[in-house]
């Protein structure tokens, strides 16, 4: 332990002060909160622009009746900034509007009132003039559509009330009310399964596997680069001549890289939360999401512990693979080209877990997934909210711990310079041979 602490300190300091780590690890991590911040700022400013300036609508009223004037009054009362245009040709009106900041042209045709009063379909022609595909434009168009729908609904309600004053128009419009319940574990939730699955599929079904994949590949990359730099700078050679065990040298590197990866993970998760909060803060989504989140099913404390343990094991597994790659590489370039292989045992279970139920896969694929330690945190996250953790997942924790310890042991055996130098030599020769081949 005495010699391990300075080695861990060395690893953490050297990694955290390395700008390449920030580029390689923090850049993708910071992308999420920055993206979230940008999106929420754009949305906020779009909403502010719309509410400050109002939505300008030009109306050509060809009907010129009291109903068409009522229509204009209605949409004005809902916040649209209505200006009446003289009865121009449509092409001329559009041409004129292109030079202004009005993006909506409504044409109320002749017969508007007579159609409405005789219970026939009336028509309003709406021209959306697209000047950009930004969020402000999308917001404006959807607000105008909502206002028109509101007018249509108001008309129906008025017809129903005039024909049958004793009837509640709402009951006629929605004669059947469905109340959905979803049963999860021993709880009955007043929410439809579709909404619930969307929420959970996003959080535990996609986010956890993606976070884990990113963290594992980053940590493998960090460990591979750090070890390859040790080879390149011959600092590993120096360490190996000190009176300390190879195991201490390896553990220093594994723990150091894992600590840096954990820090990265925390920043990444914070970034993800910022990102998703900004995405889901849209009024329509938030309204629905808020009522659900109060009723979300919870996972047991034990399953959180299992998730944490399996996550640690997966990170150590990926770090060990990274150290192996780095140790076999005589320089950073070689390790950079080899580290892609580490992604295979991480990406494969990630996609399997995201896109399917593991138990429904062919046996060979199931064995492959259960054989890989990075699969377990993904499988736990997928099921911890809905069912008890499956038996094979519970068994998988001690299995993947043993597998990872074995891999760490193998890696420590590899840190024998005799083997390392000859393996590096062989790899280098193979690459050089590959380059000189016609």
């Amino acid at each position, binding site marked *: 332990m005495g010699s391990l602490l300075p080695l861990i300190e060395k690893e953490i300091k050297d*990694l955290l002060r390395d700008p390449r780590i920030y580029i390689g690890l923090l850049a993708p991590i910071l992308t999420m909160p920055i993206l979230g911040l940008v999106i929420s700022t754009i949305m906020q400013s779009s909403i502010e622009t719309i509410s400050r300036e109002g939505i300008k609508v030009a109306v050509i009223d060809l009907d010129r009746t009291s109903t068409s004037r009522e229509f204009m009054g209605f949409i004005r009362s809902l916040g649209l900034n209505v200006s009446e245009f003289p009865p121009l040709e449509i092409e001329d009106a559009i041409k004129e509007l292109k030079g202004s900041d009005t993006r909506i042209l409504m044409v109320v045709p002749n017969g508007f009132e007579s159609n409405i009063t005789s219970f026939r379909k009336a028509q309003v022609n709406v021209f959306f003039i697209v000047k950009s595909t930004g969020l402000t434009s999308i917001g404006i168009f959807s607000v105008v559509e909502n206002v028109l729908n509101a007018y249509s609904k108001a008309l129906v309600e008025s017809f129903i009330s005039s024909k049958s004053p004793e009837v509640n128009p709402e009951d006629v419009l929605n004669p059947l009310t469905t109340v959905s319940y979803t049963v999860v574990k021993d709880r009955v939730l007043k929410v439809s399964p579709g909404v619930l699955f969307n929420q959970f599929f996003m959080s535990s079904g996609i986010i956890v596997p993606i976070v884990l994949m990113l963290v594992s590949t980053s940590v493998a990359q960090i460990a591979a680069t750090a070890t390859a730099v040790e080879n390149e700078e011959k600092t590993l050679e120096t360490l190996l*001549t000190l009176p300390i065990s190879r195991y201490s040298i390896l553990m220093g590197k594994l723990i150091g890289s894992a600590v840096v990866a954990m820090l990265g993970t925390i920043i990444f998760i914070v970034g993800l939360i910022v990102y998703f909060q900004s995405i889901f803060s849209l009024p329509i989504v938030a309204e629905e999401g808020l009522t659900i989140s109060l009723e979300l099913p919870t996972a047991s404390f034990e399953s959180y512990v299992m998730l944490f343990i399996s996550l640690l094991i997966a990170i150590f597994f990926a770090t060990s693979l990274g150290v192996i790659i780095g140790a076999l590489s005589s320089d950073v370039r070689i390790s950079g080209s080899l580290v892609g292989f580490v992604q295979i045992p991480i990406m494969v279970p990630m996609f399997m877990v995201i896109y399917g139920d593991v138990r429904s896969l062919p046996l060979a694929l199931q064995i492959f997934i259960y054989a890989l330690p990075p699969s377990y945190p993904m499988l736990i996250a997928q099921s911890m909210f809905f069912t008890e953790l499956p038996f094979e997942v519970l068994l998988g924790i001690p299995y993947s711990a043993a597998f990872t310890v074995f891999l760490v042991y193998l890696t420590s055996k590899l840190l024998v310079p005799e083997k390392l*130098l000859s393996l590096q030599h062989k790899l280098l020769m193979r690459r050089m041979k590959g380059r000189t081949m016609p």
Partner: protein
Amino acid sequence: MSVNNGVAVDVRNLVKLFGSSKALDDLSFQVREGEVFGLIGPNGAGKTTALRILATLLLPTRGSVKIFGYDVISQATDVRRIIGYLAEDAGAYRNLSGLEYLSIMARVYFRSKNEALEAVNRAVDISGLGDKIHDKIKTYSKGMKRRLQIARVFMLKPKLAILDEPTAGLDVVHASYIRKLIKDYASKYGITVIMSSHNMFEVEYVCDRVALINKGRIVAEGTPDQLKTFWNASNLEEVFIKVVDIG
């Protein structure tokens, strides 16, 4: 316990094969306690391989190597407790300061905090880097890095310092500084030194005895004066050329 009878390094019939190529071919020599011993030879002669075996980094294919009586294969951990090794072109952790690097290496080597602290103070003094010792290593010149590495080796006060090309690639000023460091501190702390070099003037200045190695074998051995007399040469460079031509 080891019995060494005043012999610091005892290399006997050492053979090292890399696949089918023979890096060392029946190499034998001895270094006495307190000596500064030079291993010189052309590129690919086997100097680095021999030093790596002494430093317990490589295993011999055949033959035996004992450091102060300890066998480098069966007693590698004991050997590591008494050696300090400087690899050719050895770097350090770029993002640490010189002081942090020395402190970490001292704490890895010594169990006692006080011993580690004393060693670091010693190293700061040996390196002669002054306030630059607080700067990040990535800002150091090649010469400053080498001074740091020499300080790292000597702060441990090892019984045997193994230095592979300690002045390779350095300018005249830094090379001269390093040579002086080796000579002074080896004598001050009573450290036995085995070093390889291409620079014959350096070897003549620093080393008490020299072995010329070619194609993995010792082809001449003695003090610089003995070698010059025997080969009727005015300096070691002439000796080297004559010996290598014959070898």
